[in-house]
């Protein structure tokens, strides 16, 4: 294939990665920004979202779009409920101490993974896409659903953004993020805000999973790689900076796609990882963050 179309394809693929990554990383970033909790189980919320989506879709039946839409509603709610419970039962009791929460979320990771293996099984199972249109370009064909994913994810990112900036709940979250003590002094129920943020973060991961599962199947080990990528995105974007997170997701997604045009894939992964690590080393506040207070 000649260079131009190849680049176009890599860009499209990169955008799909970016779209899903943006949603997922937004959840991680929100949790980190507001609660200062590094949620290692975030990838498992993603996986759980995909598994629940499969389960909903296989119960609903009928036209694939019906199952898909049902999953899009039910799955984030279920996952958010699980996260809410985990926050109340475990994280809150640890006073959100950074090291303790890392260990606790590692524990959570094992538990969710094992439960998925036991009750869902080791197979990779697909959810049927709500529609199957193959967009035919002169050089190659492309999945219409993937274009749909890019659009929906972009919409959802904007919606989340509006929620955080325009609604009272969003205001409470941002106030808590800015200064916990002051927020408490202003009678903001910090405790409930934390639980809400953790649930919302997990819900975002679940939505990302529902969008991706018609492309990538639900599997109980699917959480790890998106988790690593989301971490990278959150850090590169500047910890807790939502705008930075979205920009970084686009940057990482696109570069992941485009670097592979020029290098052998394993080498490309290696170089990309090294590059991101070095960015962090020399600009630890992230590309878009400001220097730490």
């Amino acid at each position, binding site marked *: 294939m000649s260079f131009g179309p190849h680049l176009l394809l890599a860009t499209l693929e990169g955008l799909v990665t970016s779209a899903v990554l943006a949603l997922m990383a937004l959840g991680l970033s929100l949790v*980190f920004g507001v609660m200062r909790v*590094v949620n290692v189980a975030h990838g498992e919320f993603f996986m759980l979202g995909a598994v629940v989506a499969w389960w909903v879709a296989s119960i609903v039946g009928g036209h694939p779009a019906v199952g898909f839409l049902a999953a899009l509603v039910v799955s984030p709610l279920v996952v958010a409920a699980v996260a809410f419970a985990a926050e109340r039962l*475990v994280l809150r*009791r*640890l006073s959100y101490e*950074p*090291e*303790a929460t*890392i*260990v*606790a979320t*590692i*524990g*959570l*990771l*094992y*538990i969710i*993974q*094992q*439960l998925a*293996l*036991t009750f869902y099984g080791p197979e990779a199972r697909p959810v049927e896409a709500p529609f199957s249109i193959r967009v035919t370009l002169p050089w190659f064909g492309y999945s219409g659903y993937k274009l749909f994913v890019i659009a929906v994810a972009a919409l959802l990112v904007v919606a989340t953004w509006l929620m955080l900036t325009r609604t009272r709940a969003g205001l409470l979250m941002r106030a808590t993020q800015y200064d916990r003590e002051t927020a408490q002094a202003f009678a903001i129920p910090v405790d409930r805000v934390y639980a809400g943020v953790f649930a919302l973060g997990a819900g975002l991961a679940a939505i990302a999973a529902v969008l991706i599962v018609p492309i990538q199947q639900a599997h109980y080990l699917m959480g*790890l790689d998106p988790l*690593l990528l989301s*971490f*990278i995105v959150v*850090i590169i974007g500047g*910890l807790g900076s939502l705008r930075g997170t979205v920009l970084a997701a686009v940057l990482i997604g696109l570069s992941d796609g485009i670097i592979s045009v020029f290098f052998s894939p*394993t*080498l490309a*992964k*290696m170089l990309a*990882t*090294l590059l*991101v*690590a*070095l960015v*962090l*080393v*020399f600009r*630890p506040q992230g590309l878009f963050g400001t220097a730490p207070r």
Partner: protein
Amino acid sequence: MRTDGLARIVALHLGLVLLLLALNWLLPEYHRGVFSRILVLAVFAMGYNVMFGYTGLLSLGHAMFFAAGLYGAGLTVYHLGWPAPAGFAAGLAAGLALALAVGVLALRTTGVAFMIVTLMFAQVIYLLTLYFTTYTRGEEGLVLAPEDRFIALPGAVLDPTDPSTRYLLALALFAAALAATVAIVRAPFGRTLVAIRENEERMRMLGYDVFANKLAAVAVSGVLCAAAGAAYALLFGYVGAGFASIQYSILPLLWVLLGGAATTLGPIVGTLAMFYVVDVTSGYTSAYLLVVGLALILLILYFPRGLVGTLRERWLPWLP
């Protein structure tokens, strides 16, 4: 720390080593084999503890140091035909070089960024072992022939495939690492590291080169972990990319937390406890990860200082 208790400390650690020595003849065969592995992995955990427990540097990439030792020893023995002791030395050298390189870069960051940077460097090392599959055979890994693992001493040849010899070699490594940790913890260097963990800025204003001391901690940690990796390759004969994967970066963190961070005995206790939790529960249910996960959460909720840490906090304040 003032009430010296040196005699007590030496007695405790020496007693443990002697007990482990006696176990070579007391343990049933299976458990002796298990202990051989645990002693080596405990050295990995001890290396991790130097950085995480004493210096307060939470790394999520320590698999790379273990892998540096594993491959440093494994590749030189397998491809270059080096004798086992030279391979072991190569493993240590690889660990030291990597630790210095990673330390110089990663120590420019702190907190969460440090965690992620170490994780990413480890990912690069993991991908390297896959990229050079021609030499490493990647995931599948290499098997070192028994005769290549023999250690020729003047007048004797140690055969690490013999269970007793292997146990004693593992114990020797463990004892050396334990002695090194105790010495470091009680030396000015150890006090310096702990104080850096507590308040870096204050240490700077007491005239300490914080960066150099942290780098030294990373180097010590890297060499200990590499020693464990090199010993693993030579004692058990298998070298594979799995040991460089993220799972092996998380394991030492769990072992140390379970046993007790910043305690000299925490790593061995944690490694031992974790292994037997998995080993025993996997006999009853394949859902042993659930048990591990629950154990972790309960532990962090109710015993956040780990087993030895809780012991020290409640009853034995003199434990180093």
